[in-house]
């Protein structure tokens, strides 16, 4: 295979990767920041198949737990141990996903998956 042909294939691969997005199984979103005991943004709409990242800016552990404190629904429950901790949640099915922090139950958010 000529150098020229290899170069063209490489460029095609790069272009393809850029079009498809560098991603794992899900399409990633800009994410939710956990700061000053709030989820920011608190309300978010994403496409089905999104892998949503949560990043903790507070120097204390928080959780991202689906449902409400009165009725957790078990769909996701991730712990963000402290400042800088990050975790992702895969959102494959359309619907409304309220969530909260188990340690600080006044912290609430909602994701709408389209």
């Amino acid at each position, binding site marked *: 295979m000529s150098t020229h042909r290899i170069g063209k294939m490489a460029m095609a691969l790069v272009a393809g990767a850029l079009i498809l997005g560098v991603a794992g199984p899900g399409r990633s979103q800009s994410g939710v920041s956990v*700061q*000053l*005991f*709030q989820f920011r943004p608190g309300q978010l709409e994403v496409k089905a198949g999104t892998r949503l990242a949560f990043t903790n800016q507070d120097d*204390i552990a928080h959780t991202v737990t689906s449902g409400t404190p009165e009725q957790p629904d078990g769909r996701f429950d991730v712990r963000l141990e402290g400042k800088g901790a990050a975790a992702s949640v895969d959102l494959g099915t359309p619907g409304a996903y309220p969530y909260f922090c188990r340690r600080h139950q006044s912290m609430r958010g909602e994701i709408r998956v389209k």
Partner: protein
Amino acid sequence: MKRTMIRLMGGLALLAVTAMGVGDVWAARLNQPTSATPAAGLRVGLNALLSEHVYLASAATNAALGGRDAEFKAAAGALDANSIVISKAIGSVYGPDAEKAFLPLWRKHIGMVVDYTVGAATSDRAKQDKAVTDLVGYTQDFGAFLASANPHLPKAAVADLVKHHVLTLKDVIDAQAAKDQSRAFTALRTGAGHMQMIADPLAEAIVTQFPDKF
């Protein structure tokens, strides 16, 4: 024409000198020492609110321990009103979302103090010990909140100050439960006075963070 110009220039000069004289008077007045500055107002306000918190909490716990239900409800209501004003003070600096996040966090520690008081009233040592454990854990939450809001407030330092607040209030409740009024009021003065050690650095950190506002 020349005379007119000279008169005009003279008039302008006179006006300038007069203005400078008047300006000097006002400058002297404005440069006088005063305590009525925004920074001083913040410091005084926070001190008043936080010491009020201790006095009202003590009134509520004393009423609860004495079985005076109507008095307890009134004191608890006043204590919550104080909590709301404190959260509004936070919101005035950090915005409505911060205010909304602060209030339940602040109320949480009051709930733990209530638990301790109930434990004291019923001689339930396990309940008291759990409340103390919860309150010590809470100091980390509160420290993290303020550290997140203001880089000049280290989490560990804030947590330590809040721990001291919790322990001084515990002393008040213990004395009230023992019906030792002299000890209770001594502890109350100590606890209320300690709040200056939280209010002053909090005010200082806010002023440092937002020099243009203060």
